């Protein structure tokens, strides 16, 4: 049930772009994205519900392909503050609604 995230780690220079992918073997109702800085609680970024939906938060956006059960997080013109571990959480339908399964995370490091 755990989604697969890739890559496991990304190192960027400030201003560069990155893409983080999340895929599930199960039909999805929604995909959540969170960022966690070391020693802190995860912070909500966005939820995607419908197939093809895209959303944005600052210069971070995401897409959700419901048919392929995949979501991607796009970080453009990265800033130092973007460093942290990014988790996708997937929510299934029916009896599993409300239950989030998180990937193992993608560690993003942005250097000046």
């Amino acid at each position, binding site marked *: 049930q755990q989604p697969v995230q890739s890559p496991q780690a990304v190192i960027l220079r400030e201003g560069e772009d990155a893409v983080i992918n999340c895929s599930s073997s199960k039909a999805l*109702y*929604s995909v959540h994205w969170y960022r966690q800085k070391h020693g802190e*609680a995860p912070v909500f970024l966005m*939820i995607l519900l419908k197939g093809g939906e895209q959303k944005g938060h600052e210069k971070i956006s995401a897409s959700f392909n419901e048919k392929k059960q995949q979501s991607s997080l796009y970080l453009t013109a990265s800033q130092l503050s973007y460093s942290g571990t990014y988790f996708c959480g997937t929510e299934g339908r029916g009896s599993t609604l409300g239950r*989030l399964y*998180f990937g193992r995370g993608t560690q993003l490091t942005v250097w000046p």
Partner: protein
Amino acid sequence: GAGVSQSPSNKVTEKGKDVELRCDPISGHTALYWYRQRLGQGLEFLIYFQGNSAPDKSGLPSDRFSAERTGESVSTLTIQRTQQEDSAVYLCASSLQTGNQPQHFGDGTRLSIL
């Protein structure tokens, strides 16, 4: 309160002891979730409560783990006869309701079993 509050922030105990972790959700949030995060790992779903419905306990790893919630307020996660593999950060989150809602996390309880 303004955010999800968890206590204690750190707990060190001997193997075999029972521990109780507390979570105070955001006021008005009917859904409450517990997760476990081992070092360098993702968040592992344990249990969630939605209003007065029966809790979804499907993620609890063994019968040593149990959780309760009083109405739509405080929840406690109890681990009996702790084992070293129980060492982790236990995170609580709350949301307005279940399904398609952002979850707001507390800072967690770091549990260390000696």
